[in-house]
């Protein structure tokens, strides 16, 4: 098949080059090269694909036409969160991850990958400072996947097969965790037991937790802040109760809160997991996710990590280098005998997060945390003052809180539709996920929301509820 002009992505599509390659093999058609494939395996007709857009100008126009049908959180005023958040992304993070050197590599040598490996080590090192933990692996696909792996690690460490999780858990994350714990038919099934949450504080019911803890429990998984935004101030008691039963404590944390919230390493968590998306990574409609797993630096934990781990190392000439530690225990090294599995993950985002943490520093994280928690509480108090609206658990949250609309007589879906017509993306509808909370929505406020934005939300909600 000869084309009239060479394809811009394919340097050898010049007819003369192709002929030269064929001639060097002593053949006159590529067809001969496919002789391994039996004739009855071959597709007999050309693929039916739309015409090629080989010119960048045409392709750009086509893609722009499609993309312009979207309305982003920059076009509208969004209060969506719950597992993916509209935080500010410093321009430097975008610049760095789009560098061709970081964008294109796959896997080189410790020397040729030096810069990238160092950036990865700077990701884990800075995460370690935020979390107060000494062992941090390269990220996995998402928070849910990190939680799933951490639970499986705990099951292997303890030789037990039950895990306690909060009843109020993100349905997306919860679905991933259920998947990782396997159905009951499988011999390696991990049974998930829900722990009640207090209906007023939305925090874990400590008595129920203690009642369900016993020597069959591999781990207690809880989140701080919880899915509904509340800061779990009983963290230390939860970890102590788990420890007393020989269970591991796994804390799911939002790293952007750690400028002002106590790190999991300081309240007894054995393992910490969470999302790296808040750290300088755009939401990308969910494509910005990445999950971290961290723990104490003890062989007991290190030997169970499925994720790749980068260690600082020394070269033959005493320079700093970076290499994989314990690579043999991964699925690359041991196939089905390896720890769960690993593969391409979200490593590009680790570099964005490294740059983000270096930009913020301790003062930036503190300022950011303070700003978010103040604006979130301001927003909650403003909304709570609107007729028919009630904020559940009015204090003690970080950036998200539950807004209840029971007294308005309106459904959250209808309220959100009315907000949308006014260019506001209302909070996540919880009515079906947690019917016990009534007609409620999860609102998220970040550093992106100014006082004026929050006022606009309150005014718009008031208007919507009047009509």
């Amino acid at each position, binding site marked *: 098949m000869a*084309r009239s002009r060479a394809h811009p*992505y394919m*340097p*050898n*599509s010049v007819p003369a080059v192709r002929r030269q390659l064929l001639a060097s*093999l002593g053949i006159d058609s590529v067809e001969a090269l496919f002789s391994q494939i039996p004739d*009855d395996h071959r597709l007999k007709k*050309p693929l039916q*694909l739309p015409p*090629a857009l*080989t010119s960048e100008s045409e392709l750009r126009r086509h893609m722009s036409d*499609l*993309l312009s049908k979207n309305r*982003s*959180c920059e076009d509208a005023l969004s209060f969506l969160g719950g597992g*993916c958040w509209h935080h500010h992304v410093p321009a430097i993070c975008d610049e760095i991850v789009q*560098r061709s*050197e970081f*964008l*294109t*590599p796959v*896997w*080189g*040598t*410790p*020397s040729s990958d030096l810069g990238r490996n160092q950036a990865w*080590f700077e990701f884990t*090192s800075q995460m370690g*400072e935020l979390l107060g933990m000494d062992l941090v692996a390269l990220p996995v696909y*998402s928070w849910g996947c990190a939680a799933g792996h951490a639970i499986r690690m705990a099951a292997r460490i303890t030789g037990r097969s039950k895990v306690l999780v909060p009843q109020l858990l*993100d349905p997306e994350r919860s679905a*991933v965790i259920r998947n990782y714990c*396997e159905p009951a*038919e499988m011999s390696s099934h991990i049974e998930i037991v829900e722990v009640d949450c207090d209906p007023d504080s939305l925090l874990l019911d400590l008595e129920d937790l203690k009642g369900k803890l016993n020597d069959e429990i591999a781990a207690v998984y809880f989140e701080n802040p919880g899915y509904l935004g509340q800061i*779990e101030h009983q963290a230390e008691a939860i970890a102590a109760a788990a420890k007393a039963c020989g269970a591991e404590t796994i804390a799911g944390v939002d790293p952007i809160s750690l*400028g002002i919230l106590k*790190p999991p390493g300081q309240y007894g968590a054995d393992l910490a997991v969470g999302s790296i998306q808040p750290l300088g990574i755009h*939401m*990308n*409609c969910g*494509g910005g996710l990445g999950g971290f797993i961290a723990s104490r630096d003890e062989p007991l934990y290190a030997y169970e990590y499925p994720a790749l781990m980068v260690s*600082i190392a020394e*070269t033959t000439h005493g320079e700093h280098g970076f*290499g994989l530690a314990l690579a043999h225990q991964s*699925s690359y090294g041991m*196939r089905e005998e390896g720890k769960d*599995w690993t593969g*391409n993950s979200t490593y*590009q*985002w680790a570099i964005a997060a490294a740059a983000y943490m*270096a*930009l913020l*520093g*301790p003062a930036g994280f503190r300022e950011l*945390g303070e*700003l978010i928690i*103040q*604006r979130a*509480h301001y927003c909650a108090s403003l909304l709570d003052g609107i007729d028919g609206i009630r904020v559940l658990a009015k204090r003690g949250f970080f950036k998200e809180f539950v807004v209840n609309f029971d007294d308005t007589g309106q459904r959250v879906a209808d309220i959100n539709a009315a907000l*949308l017509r006014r260019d506001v993306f209302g909070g996540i509808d919880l009515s079906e996920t947690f019917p016990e909370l009534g007609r409620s929505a999860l609102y998220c406020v970040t550093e992106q929301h100014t006082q004026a934005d929050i006022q606009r939300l309150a005014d718009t909600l008031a208007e919507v509820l009047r009509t």
Partner: protein
Amino acid sequence: MSVQLRRYHAAVWDEPVVMEMGVRGRRGCHFPAAEADVAAAAGSAEALVPPSMRRPSGPELPEMSEPDVLRHYLHLSQQTLGMMGISLFGTCTMKYNPRLTESLAARPWIADLHPGQDPSTLQGALEIAHNLNELLCELSGMDQFTFQPAGGADAAYAHACLTRAYHAGRGELEQRNQIITSIQAHPCNPATSAAAGFEVVTLMLEPDGYPSLDALKAAVSERTAALMINNPDDMGIYNPNIREWIRVVHDAGGLCFYDHANFNGVMSKVRARELGFDACMFMLHKTFGVAKGGGGPAVGAYGCTAELARYLPGPIVRKAGDRFDLVDDSPVSIGRVREYWGNVHQLAKAYAWTRAMGAEGIAEASDMSVLINNYMERELLKIRGITRSHPDIGSWRMEMTRFSLGQLYEDTGVSVMDVQNRMVDFGVDAFWLSHEPWVVPQPFTPEAGEMWSKEDVDYWIAVLQQISDEAYSNPEIVKTAPHNQAIHKLGPESLDEPGRWAMTWRAYKKKQT
């Protein structure tokens, strides 16, 4: 062939670890203080945090100014070879990553979308996913794809989960607890099978390069849940009995999954569905032009037949009239393998790549990748110390060939890792060796695909020729390589020792004292 080797040298910045940088009080980024009304109404931030949960002291992060952070990471980027030179990393199909789609995906219309937005505000993203689904269905013959799996291994895991759901639905899950694969299948196939709770049955290779049909027949039983296999394998050998294999597994009641990791050589030539497979997986970060990113974010696009579609993880994009929607209503869905519906920015890039190539371009890319591989094989086998796997198989290989430096190692003591380290001295990034277990000694697996010019491939070959010459004349120069990189090779100390490894700076500091 006369090629002038480049006088390449990596950038040497002697860049400190970021944890050693900065000066107390420097700032790289400010946030505003809360507005006066906000602060007055909300109270102090400290008072808003329950006392037991207040951070007692700040994290020990570097304190740097904004330009210093930028320059630090620019320096690190310059100390990363990536595709600045030539990278023929086999099994990963190095492709051009069009800058157009990178810039498009960075726009707010992709970058700043929240997955929970009302579908009416996501019509462009959903249309792209819908269109990409149709393109992949045409390329595979499958009926429905999901883009939720965040990599090839995650797609394999999705298949293992779907296999569970399929057999559970028939009441046979407890009985069907085995997944069959081959020793040449990517490790993610056995690993995800085991992680999903299955026993793994691994078939070994026969002299013709793939396991025998008889071995498969002996392995299948009423316990067989699925077959997970790639074809061709990483040695460039195509299993001509694959139709019979699928028949045998189907007759035994198992599902058949086609790991299309090596799709580049067969795209437009075969279709998974017509070979009889129930499901397949494409890696959009390999075959479809999406950037590797050093290891993701990736997409393992998993497609299956209409019969199996009800088990797919949700949500799935559906078209209704002129509108696109997200549907998640199947009661037998496997739920989620990851939150939300995929790395959407990567879908946009893969869709744009496929549109830029078209049917003709895709067929041509497959032709070119097989043509250039056989050209490269011929030239490489002329170099002293290089052999290939299965030398007696006379046919042309597909888009890859598994080579061995066993002879070179025996003759000179220069290992395949030494050669990797020496190649980077010429601006050529590491080749892929082989997945475990190695079936030939000192293996390596280059793959040129359609993006590297004949001149690039000739340069790559010339570099290997040079290193072979060096190995036979002055092996020390290879064994002590690299010499033109920012750092030398890692020392012999094992990073598997608890007292030695340090995955964070804080661990490193503790272990130093």
